[in-house]
């Protein structure tokens, strides 16, 4: 059962990474235009550098 000492922190850490990533996406306005962003990614106009 000693393996738990590693596994539990690891699983919590991985879950936490997911949570932090989600909070980052909310904070950086990534849900403001889901429809437009889905189409923008298919466009090759800003492939070399991001749109300012």
């Amino acid at each position, binding site marked *: *059962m000693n393996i*738990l000492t590693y596994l*539990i922190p690891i*699983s*919590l850490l991985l*879950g*936490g990474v*997911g*949570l932090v990533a*989600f*909070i980052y996406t*909310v904070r950086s306005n990534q849900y*403001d*235009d*889901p*429809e*437009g962003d889905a*189409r*923008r990614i*298919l*466009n090759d*106009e800003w492939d070399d550098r991001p749109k*300012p």
Partner: protein
Amino acid sequence: MTAVMRPNASVCPACDAGPAAAALASGAELAQDARLALSLPTIHCGACISTVERTLDAHPGVRSSRVNLTLKRATVEADADVTADALIALLESAGYEAHELDAGSLSATQADKAGRDLLMRLAVAGFASMNVMLLSVSVWSGAEAATRDLFHWISAAITLPTILFSGKPFFVSAWAALRHRRLNMDVPIVLAIVLAVMTSLWETMLSGEHAYFDAALALTFFLLAGRYLDHRTRAIARSAAEELAALEVPRAHRLTGDTEETVAVSALEVGDLIRVRPGGRMPVDGVITEGQSELDRSLLTGETVPVFAETGLQVSAGEVNLTGPLTIRASAVGKDTSLHRMADLVAIAESGRSRYTSLADAAAKLYAPGVHILSALAFVGWYLYTFDIRTALNIAAAVLIITCPCALGLAVPAVTTAASGRLFRKGMLIKHATALERLAQVDTVVFDKTGTLTQGTPDLVNAEDMTLTQFEIAMALSVGSSHPLAQAIFSKGQKAGVGLALVSEIFEVPGYGTTGVWNGQPVRLGRASWVGAEPLGQVSTFLQIGAEDAIALRFKDALRPGAADAVRALRESGKDVLLISGDSTGAVEELSARLGIAKWIAEALPADKAQKITALSEAGRHVLMVGDGLNDTAALAAAHVSISPATALDAARVASDIVLLGNDLGPIPEAVEVAQKATRRIRENFRIATLYNVIAVPLAIAGLATPLIAALAMSTSSITVSLNALRLR
């Protein structure tokens, strides 16, 4: 929004002596004009995005532009001298319809802070409840002794901060209710969460078997989901309503000396001279100082016949100038205008409506004391039976968790979200949270006439009274005019394939009509008194050729599409339909006969309308008011529930619960039906939740409810309730 540094405009280095003042000035300018918002209703694809952005970026002065496809909107950062009109013309030449939006009224939508806050709390609660659930599953499947204690301690470490953060909306709301000595749905929720966490902590310290950390978190998660759904439904409606308001950019043309400048309506002051072009709306109350025209007062009073306007006439904000340019001197601006004074009337009328208690609150009133009494009884009973405070407290917590209104908290928002979504696709905007419930109770429908049942645009009815030559002359005289009657003649003629006669020297006399020369004799189209004819009681204009007797051209207000169907469907479903209008008796009588409405009231003042509605409500009726004008606002606010079309004045839209986005009145009977279905579904959901309680509560009181049973009961009831709500879509 990021602050944009503006390159210094001055060329000589010595001019930089007063940079502070320049920065101040340019700062003020930037804040006002650097950001433009455009509504683009026709964009739909990825190619549209890049075309629009490229078109906008190519315009000199535009710094950056960004299209939002979801909201069908573009925001442009540009120099102060770039006007929206120029951008709109540019986009229209590229093939996209564009309208300016008032960036000021949109600011609230862009920073939907409350929604984001809820989403964040929901995410944290979801993350924590999944982790704790995993730990709990291993406890349920047989973890023992030290392992179980370890898992319980980890669960506690995750749960405590999460509950503090995610549960905050419930704590705040429950505290607000308790402070006013009331009970709402959040009081039992908070009590259950707090008691569950406390007893679980105590159990964990004593290395006990049962801990309810997972239940407390799942509860928070499900309830937050309900709260978030509720918020989103309202945010969507609010943003659409704001967009409607933002489409009317409040601008006025102010005359200073000989120059005319465009300013915001809010910047106008008493005594300013304002020019109002034909087709424009009066921005303020005032007196006409120059010009002659006709005024359309239908939005304020419901009258359809245009009023003759000349120097010295009092005008009110909201009236539409029809034919000639007018100069008015402002006598009241902003909050003092008659438009705003109407707001007082609305405030009085609205106080009656706030008495409505929503189904959820009614359920909470019954439910909250019941739950508390039940769990207190369980505690006392078990304490007297065992004299063990630990067991008694554990069972009391289990009762609270099992009865906790998880399903109840989801029952209402899930249904209103589904129903509002369905009505939104039909072109109806539900603005108020309890509007659907109130709409379901309606038994009397009151319609306004002008602009609601009718389109407010006249339709020529006796075209056959004219010979072809006369019609062609009338066409030629009306072709260039912006007067609604002239436009009605022209569109009728165009549809019938009538051409234009050769009339020369056409000249519009503002306020009277149009004159010209045909075959060497003067021809006139206009007011009765101007052509020397007897005025008729209804909307009409007169055509006079040479010295002949004038021919009367009569008009009827065109029905709004779906009006007849809506009235018929409402009557067939057993509702009382009334027509209350500020228009003349003749016009109202004719329309009610046409639609088969037996009860009608004509020449009603705004206060009369509101009074009639109040009288009906006092007689026990649930009144639905449908209206669009300023004269309807008080009545809209006084009614049990109200609907206004998107073409209505801003004030009327604000006062009503539901806004019809399309031109068609057809969806109204269907909306009533959907509302009734939704209310039935809400009651059904309450029943399902109660059924779960009836099964699970005896188990909890008997002390048989393990955390596993609590988790199962909670999830199944929540999922059943959500699925039941989805049947509405």
